[in-house]
């Protein structure tokens, strides 16, 4: 309806004037687009390995940014914004976008934006584009997935589209990389433009209100003023006074946000239809149903769907526990051999610090890499192919009785890798209640940091025997631990569902991405980033704690250690030298700072079957549970024969006061159950705080999970011992 006169109609936005001289600072460009429009692929194509994923608890958490070499001597910072369907945020993730694009004074305000649109689905993709442009941002349209569009018989007249939209249009295919070079040139030359006219503008009747907001906040256009009116409750940078003022204005003029938004969206679609009529012709070549729909019939089948999902999960566990074992053994043995080689050649306290402190801790970090890489690789493939959306679809009805939604499944499964990204992933859940429940229970899913604890202890007490000639007993026990975690998560969710009151209704609606073959480059990039983040952030903590522990275990208060040693030597009499040496070492450890520490908490944990050595490990793993194995390795390597390379050998060699092996199945099981439930991760608590903006949630998690762990371990030990 506004197609003809749009270009001549009053346009308060002046066209952007490209800077004549190159600006002193590099360009800042934001990528924006619908979910599944290939935005992430394009981001990876542009930036490659030069990406920086903001880490918690920093400020840039939500934003992925990277550097792109657009042309020789022309670098630009690319900011990847979360996928969204419109500029009216419906979930937390999307608020990041408006906070960035509303505030021209913001330090990260982009010079221009690249809007990625799915060429096979132009109508819906252009909705966001017209909103972005109407906000007054210079834009480039990256017309993605042209190959898919062509296959569907969609012919797009690019020059005509450019004419109609008033911005550069670059046809491309981000997955294969074709067209990316052209896009880089357009970006480097700063050819982004603002169209001469708007695609939509507020009704005459709204103008008095909109103008009042616009002049009050000194905004550069009417549409932005309208957004202020729509969103003022959620705009970060507004003060309380500003918000009160906006609310007052809205009530005074009787502003109906919902009706206005619906009207705007419908009007935009009409305008877009007019544009598409001029530029797109569809000649349906294929009459057959799309492959994706036929695949869906199999993958979401009422029986087959679940069987396939189970099979995929089974494969995932197989990969993590069987395939990862070989590289892990290599790393374990390699570290052990290196440590022995050093000890054989040199001696002295510094060498012991290096081998028993630093190297032992480092081994505890590096050994994780194969499993983390496999797990994140797997999840990335499931996400890339579009299968994750189907999992959500399959599981929604099943999850609802527990107060969760199908969208909780992805965070819960990601929780198998690490609760930190999983909790952040819960942002896609729009409903407050569903989201809080998901965040609260996700840490109960057995994360990869528990894997080493599980593997070491299970291998220690469970025989390597076949079950039903198909499975391995150890594998079955491991599966049981994971199921225990899963069921406790579901049970806790059910309890929370009863306790919490809903604030708003929960949505489920989402788009089913078309099945795609995964881009291995994207998968590899994900794996690389996750492993690097783990080695750097978790690794530093682990190595630092290992060194600290070594110090605490090697030195004691005053002359306590020397006295303990003297006592043992006096009592030993004619014992064999090897036994004597071990007893001396044990006595020295007991008299060390760590021993004193462990002794203090021993009465609390004795009912669980734990002694003071395990007590030390429990305390240190409250910072991060992956420290457990490193701690055990450090504590038990003090005073044992140096040739016991691996942690398992050290634990197996450990004797109780009665001379029998200390780690009985009951004790190991109690410890395992404790680790299934216990909240032992500072990072998770930090991220829960950040995501819920309240200390209530992380503290609740800490107390609930620790209590659960204590009770469960108590039960196991008292029944089985």
């Amino acid at each position, binding site marked *: 309806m506004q197609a003809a006169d749009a270009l001549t109609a009053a346009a308060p936005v002046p066209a952007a004037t490209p800077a004549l001289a190159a600006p002193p600072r590099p360009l800042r460009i934001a990528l924006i687009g619908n979910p599944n429009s290939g935005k992430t692929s394009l981001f990876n194509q542009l930036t490659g390995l030069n990406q920086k994923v903001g880490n918690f608890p920093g400020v840039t958490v939500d934003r992925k940014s990277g550097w792109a070499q657009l042309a020789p001597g022309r670098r630009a910072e690319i900011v990847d914004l979360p996928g969204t369907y419109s500029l009216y945020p419906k979930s937390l993730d999307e608020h990041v976008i408006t906070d960035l694009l509303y505030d021209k004074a913001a330090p990260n305000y982009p010079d221009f934006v690249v809007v990625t649109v799915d060429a096979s689905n132009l109508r819906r993709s252009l909705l966001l584009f017209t909103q972005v442009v109407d906000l007054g941002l210079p834009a480039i349209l990256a017309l993605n997935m042209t190959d898919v569009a062509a296959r569907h018989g969609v012919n797009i007249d690019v020059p005509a589209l450019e004419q109609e939209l008033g911005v550069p249009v670059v046809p491309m295919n981000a997955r294969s990389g074709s067209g990316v070079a052209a896009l880089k040139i357009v970006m480097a030359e700063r050819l982004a433009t603002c169209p001469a006219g708007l695609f939509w503008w507020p009704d005459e009747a709204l103008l008095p209100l909109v103008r009042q907001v616009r002049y009050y906040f000194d905004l550069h256009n009417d549409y932005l003023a309208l957004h202020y009116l729509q969103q003022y409750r959620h705009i970060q940078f507004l003060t309380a006074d500003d918000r009160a003022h906006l609310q007052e204005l809205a009530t005074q003029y009787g502003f109906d946000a*919902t009706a206005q938004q619906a009207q705007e969206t419908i009007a935009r679609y009409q305008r877009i239809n007019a544009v598409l009529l001029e530029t797109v012709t569809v000649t349906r070549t294929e009459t057959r149903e799309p492959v994706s729909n036929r695949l869906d019939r199999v993958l979401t089948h009422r029986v087959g769907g679940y069987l396939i999902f189970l099979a995929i999960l089974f494969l995932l566990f197989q990969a993590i526990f069987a395939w990862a074992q070989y590289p892990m053994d290599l790393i374990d043995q390699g570290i052990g051999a290196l440590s022995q080689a050093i000890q054989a050649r040199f001696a002295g306290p510094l060498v012991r610090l290096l081998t028993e402190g630093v190297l032992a801790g480092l081994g505890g970090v590096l050994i994780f890499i194969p499993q983390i890489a496999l797990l994140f690789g797997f999840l990335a493939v499931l996400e890339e192919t579009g299968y994750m959306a189907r999992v959500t679809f399959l599981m929604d009805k099943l999850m609802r009785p527990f107060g969760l939604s199908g969208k909780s499944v992805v965070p819960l499964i990601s929780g198998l890798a690490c609760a930190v990204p999983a909790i952040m992933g819960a942002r896609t859940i729009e409903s407050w209640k569903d989201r809080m429940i998901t965040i609260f229970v996700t840490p109960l899913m057995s994360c990869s940091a528990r894997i080493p604890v599980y593997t070491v202890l299970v291998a220690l007490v469970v025989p390597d025997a076949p079950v039903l000639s198909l499975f391995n007993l150890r594998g079955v026990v491991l599966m049981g631990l994971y199921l225990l975690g899963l069921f406790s998560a579901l049970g806790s969710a059910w309890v929370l569902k009863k306790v919490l009151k809903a604030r708003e209704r929960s949505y489920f609606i989402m788009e089913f991405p078309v099945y795609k073959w995964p881009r291995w480059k994207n998968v590899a990039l994900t794996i690389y980033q996750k492993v690097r983040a783990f080695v750097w952030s978790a690794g530093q903590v682990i190595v630092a704690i290992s060194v600290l522990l070594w110090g605490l275990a090697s030195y004691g208060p005053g002359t306590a250690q020397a006295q303990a040693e003297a006592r043992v030597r006096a009592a030993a009499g004619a014992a064999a030298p090897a036994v004597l040496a071990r007893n001396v070492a044990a006595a020295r450890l007991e008299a060390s700072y760590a021993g004193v520490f462990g002794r203090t908490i021993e009465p609390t944990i004795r009912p669980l079957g734990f002694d003071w050595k395990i007590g030390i490990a429990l305390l240190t793993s409250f910072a991060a549970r992956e420290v457990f194995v490193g701690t055990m390795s450090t504590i038990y390597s003090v005073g044992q024969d140096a040739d016991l390379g691996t942690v398992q050998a050290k634990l197996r060699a450990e004797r109780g006061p009665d001379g029998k092996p200390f780690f009985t199945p009951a004790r190991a099981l109690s410890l395992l159950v404790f680790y299934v439930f216990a909240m032992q991760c500072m990072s998770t608590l930090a991220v829960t705080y950040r995501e819920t903006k309240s200390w209530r949630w992380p503290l609740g998690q800490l107390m609930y999970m620790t209590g659960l762990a204590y009770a469960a371990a108590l039960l196991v030990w008292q029944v089985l011992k």
Partner: protein
Amino acid sequence: MSLFRRTAAAVPATASRRTAAGLCLGETGTICCLEDPTMALKLLEMGCVPGVLVRLSGRAPLGDPLMLVLGDNEYTLSLRRSEAATITLKP
């Protein structure tokens, strides 16, 4: 001109009303209006605009959520029965 308002008031929730939740498997209908104002915003953004064709292409194994194909096989949405029930179809 707000489409959903006028129609929401005009069409009472009777049993004879056709909604996207009531489609048979494989059946097609044309979107007439969106009943629930908040839900309507989300549906509109995702392309459920009055006049667009929808086809029920599948149901999850337990009968919920549903899979709706929009337009001429353009793309598939997945949504709960209760959400689909807010989409009324032209008789």
